[in-house]
């Protein structure tokens, strides 16, 4: 059989990194093929090359045996290659059907297209209202729009980039059914993931990636998880040491009846949120992104103020009215989700970025910056946290995601916080750095600090948190003890605290409407 798609010796370099090094793979019609690898292994780059959104430096791509020359997304679509991005390429300000209209070549007729979308969504069990504006959709619904958009093209090859990272466990099963149905109809599926269990459940073949190179090909259903993990990670990772928590007597952070309207028109309102975080423990907030995490985090960090200063108490002191500087003085440190542009100034050096929050540690005197001290401060972080960089004069934007994250975590820990707030601690960070950062957070909490983590990675939360809270549609669940709960329970809470949604419509992807 002629492969649907064949890659031969693909190479792609970025300044300072080799994203893909001599990559070859082939996919047969109707095959579900996994590309398995850790974050930063080069999978996403490869997918963009296949789709034509990024050009390879060298190598060949063949579709149904014919080489593709001068590749771009339009060529892909003409060939029947469609892609569902990890971070969706949907436009917030326009409707579902308009979004879909942008990527179909049929004459511009929204009414006719709406009918087609409805028809298709019923056939594959993914209900959606074509007239709704995308910014009103949940993440799961958005993914449905993306997939429907691809299906309208009758694709011969569908690429999905980490499709489950935004879904609840229940929604994942539902997605797999759709994908199997598609494959049975002859569509090839390229499934990119770093989750072993999913690949073993779903995929026929797996190509495993490490540091931009293919390290092996396997039949995941016949291969042990250990074997796959070895190909993926290479050397053995350090084991996490999570000793039992020793919570302090009094809470470090007390949230009582916190409600707030969204400031962004695409945001989520927070409703009556209450919880505590004690020194000596790690509390995790789970949830599908876009359920109020961004709003909650900016209210906790002081980037946004709250008129009721009693709603947020830090170390027993009403703090809602304090800005980010005031909160830090009260003992908070904060690692935001966006590293470039929020946690660090991209065009500034590490010295200057150290100063961003580290200025309170003696490097500013009489209103003047003591440049030697500032440099020493940043150099300490780079050494202690093993940040790979060309020195402290390097710009923040020149660091890899993982190294910049280590720098930011290091800087915030250097503030010796009584409460550390961390949002998506290991997003896009390579395995080694992720393990290091998680261990650092555990150590900090066991040394007595309160640690609050907001993350979409359930694995991560289950690995290091002592207690879990689930946020959905701006509301927070009751507190769950990690050792007394499981993914099933957390997953249900992520879908809206309400089992009826799943039972009634068979519509487990609908997170909230």
């Amino acid at each position, binding site marked *: 059989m002629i492969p649907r798609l064949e890659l031969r010796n693909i190479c792609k370099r970025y300044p300072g990194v080799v994203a893909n090094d001599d990559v070859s793979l082939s996919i047969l019609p109707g095959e579900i093929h996994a590309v398995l690898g850790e974050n930063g292994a080069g999978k996403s780059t490869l997918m963009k090359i296949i789709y034509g959104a990024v050009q390879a430096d060298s190598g060949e791509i063949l579709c149904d045996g014919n080489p593709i020359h001068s590749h771009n*997304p339009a060529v892909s679509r003409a060939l029947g290659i469609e892609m569902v991005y990890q971070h969706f390429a949907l*436009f917030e*300000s326009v409707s579902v059907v308009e979004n879909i209209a942008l990527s179909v070549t049929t004459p511009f007729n929204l009414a006719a297209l709406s009918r087609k979308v409805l028809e298709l969504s019923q056939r594959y069990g993914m209900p959606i209202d074509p007239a709704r504006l995308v910014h009103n959709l949940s993440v799961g619904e958005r993914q449905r729009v993306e997939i429907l958009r691809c299906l309208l093209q009758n694709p011969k090859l569908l690429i999905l980039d980490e499709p489950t990272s935004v879904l609840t466990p229940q929604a994942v099963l539902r997605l797999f059914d759709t994908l199997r149905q598609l494959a049975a109809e002859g569509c090839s599926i390229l499934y990119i993931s770093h989750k072993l269990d999913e690949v073993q459940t779903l995929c026929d073949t797996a190509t495993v990636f490490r540091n931009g190179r293919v390290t092996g090909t396997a039949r995941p259903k016949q291969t042990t998880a250990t074997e796959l993990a070895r190909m993926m990670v290479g050397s053995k990772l350090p084991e996490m040491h999570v000793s039992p928590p020793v919570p302090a007597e009094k809470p470090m952070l007390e949230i009582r009846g916190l409600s707030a309207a969204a400031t962004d028109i695409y945001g989520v309102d927070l409703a009556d949120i209450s919880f505590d975080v004690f020194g000596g423990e790690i509390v995790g907030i789970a949830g599908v992104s876009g359920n109020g995490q961004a709003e909650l985090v900016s209210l906790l960090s002081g980037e946004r103020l709250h008129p009721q200063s009693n709603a947020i108490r830090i170390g027993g002191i009403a703090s809602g009215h304090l800005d980010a500087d005031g909160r830090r003085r009260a003992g908070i440190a904060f690692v935001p989700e966006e590293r470039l542009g929020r946690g660090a100034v991209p065009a500034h050096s590490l010295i200057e970025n150290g100063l961003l929050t580290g200025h309170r540690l003696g490097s500013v005197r009489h209103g003047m910056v003591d440049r030697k001290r500032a440099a020493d401060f940043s150099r300490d972080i780079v050494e202690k946290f093993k940040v790979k960089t060309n020195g402290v004069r390097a710009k923040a934007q020149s660091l890899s995601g993982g190294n910049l994250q280590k720098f930011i975590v290091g800087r915030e820990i250097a503030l010796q916080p009584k409460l550390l707030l961390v949002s998506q601690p290991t997003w896009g960070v390579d395995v080694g750095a992720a393990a290091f950062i998680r261990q650092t957070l555990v150590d900090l909490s066991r040394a007595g600090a309160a640690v609050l983590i907001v993350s979409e990675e359930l694995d991560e939360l289950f690995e290091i948190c002592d207690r879990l809270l689930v946020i959905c549609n701006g509301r927070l669940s009751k507190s769950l003890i990690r050792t007394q709960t499981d993914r099933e329970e957390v997953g249900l809470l992520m879908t809206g605290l309400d089992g009826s949604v799943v039972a009634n419509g068979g519509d487990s992807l609908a997170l909230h409407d």
Partner: protein
Amino acid sequence: MDLFIAIFTGTIVAATPLVLAALGELVVEKSGVLNLGIEGMMLTGAALAFGVALAGLPLPLAIVAGVAGGAASSMLFGVLALTFLTNQYAAGLALAIFGSGLSAMIGNGFGNTPIAALGTLHIPVLSDIPLVGPLIFRFDILVYFSLFMVVFIGWFLYRTKAGLVLRTIGESPQSAHAIGYPVVRIRYLAVLFGGAMAGLAGAYLSVVYTPLWVENMTAGRGWIALALVVFSTWRPYRVLLGAWLFGGMTILQLQGQVLGIALPSELLSALPYLATIVVLVIISRNRQMLALNFPASLAKPFRPAG
């Protein structure tokens, strides 16, 4: 009654260059690009159009020259902002300064010679209807064109695929690029259109509104057009509304001077500028309303990856 007709028609005519320039900028901004250089493009268009008319060539040709001048000068900005990824504020300012210098240089030889202005239409029967005739059917053709453009741009942006593509590029060029649209090329076209409309607005000033060359004759209208786009919250019909408001302000202020209102003329002349500020303040306070149609990528440089 004559006074009412004078104020009404005067308002419409004074609003026309603002409508043209602001509509052009609205399309540019909808694509996510901020061109602050309208004043410079208008002046370039005004000078070229006037020069062609002064040379005795037909007025339609003069207007075409104005359009071409505006479009050509917009490309100076386009290359900087879209290819060289320059700070769009700085590139726009450079164009504003350059255009004012260039137009003054072109206009250096124009002297004080006036030209015959583009006349108003006279439609048989319709133009002669009492009251209605002078109020509706006795404008120059560009007034009708500007009204047509309001409707056309509204239709284009919200009823066609090309308009949808333009709006989505303004929201997220990354996503538009990801699904295969030539973001940079489309933005170039938008900037070119904005330049052509600004050039037309300038030509309107120099060969219709005040057919006499005066250095910097736009007198800040390019900047007011920019303010109108904010005022309109990026909706074409509201551009018209805002332009009439400012046209009316200009005419009232002129009429006030004619009627001998006991205020110095300079202070009356300051009214449209002060009104611009007041209106901007009122609109800007409502962040939610601004955010609704705001092109989210406005003034952020974009370079396709890979």
